């Protein structure tokens, strides 16, 4: 247990939020993958019709979309940590972080397009 100290705590506290978000998204992805693996093992889809059948139900589309949203959030926290550890010049790091955010948002839109077209 952490004891209360007289230390003045500063900072925006987003470190804890990101840490927690990375673990929650990880747990969600583990559940989704486990369910998907079970579904595919019970009734292995062999052709295009069967694969589209798996993603026809809207609950499956929503779950898959949430899986990808969790994946992108998880990836953002991870890549941000890696960039903070290895890219020291602030301008370069900020540029790379903005690029990663834009790419991940584009992926999210692309995922919706793939699932609902």
């Amino acid at each position: 247990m952490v004891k209360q100290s007289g230390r003045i705590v500063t900072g925006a506290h987003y470190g804890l939020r990101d840490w927690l978000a990375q673990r929650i998204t990880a747990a969600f992805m583990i559940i989704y993958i486990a369910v998907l693996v079970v579904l595919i093992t019970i009734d292995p889809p062999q052709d295009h019709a069967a694969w589209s059948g798996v993603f026809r139900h809207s609950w499956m589309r929503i779950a898959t979309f949430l899986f990808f949203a969790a994946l992108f959030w998880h990836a953002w926290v991870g890549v941000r940590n890696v960039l903070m550890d290895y890219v020291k010049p602030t301008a370069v790091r900020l540029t790379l972080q903005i690029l990663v955010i834009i790419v991940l948002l584009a992926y999210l839109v692309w995922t919706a397009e793939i699932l609902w077209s």
Partner: protein
Amino acid sequence: MACVLLYYRLNLIRKCAASNPADSLGGGQLRNYHFKVSRMEAKLKHKRPRHLDLFKITQPLPAIVSIMHRISGVLLFFPGIPLLLCGLRMLLESPESFASVQAVFQHPGLKLLLVLFVWFFLHHLCAGIRYLALDLHYGVELAQARASSKWVLATSVLLTLLTGVALW
């Protein structure tokens, strides 16, 4: 090293206080303390690694699993995610694109590449489950942490081999 010295000093003071509270850190004890500290300093100076060259020092297994978790994570981010989305799109778009995905993975080299990415994913998954357990304070003892890192490596490689066998 400062921490080691501080710990040693505190330990000595506690021992002295326990044996003779009225005379903590008396003359003899203090001389003894300085003698021991100087001997320890000499020992530390001798034993300390002179470099932190990653190609010359060996890392413990949990550290190897940790850096592999990071490297696999970066590779899953790129090119993993765009390839996964491409694959999903071709899988769902039309019977023709589905057939082209199947055709692509008939190539043995690409099949091997797929198995490699399956390994990255499985290592990231197994090591991630280990970290979730560690965050919940399960298996934080050194022996358990070393054993679980061994299990992570073994399980991910075994599951990858099984996937490879299923693909071929």
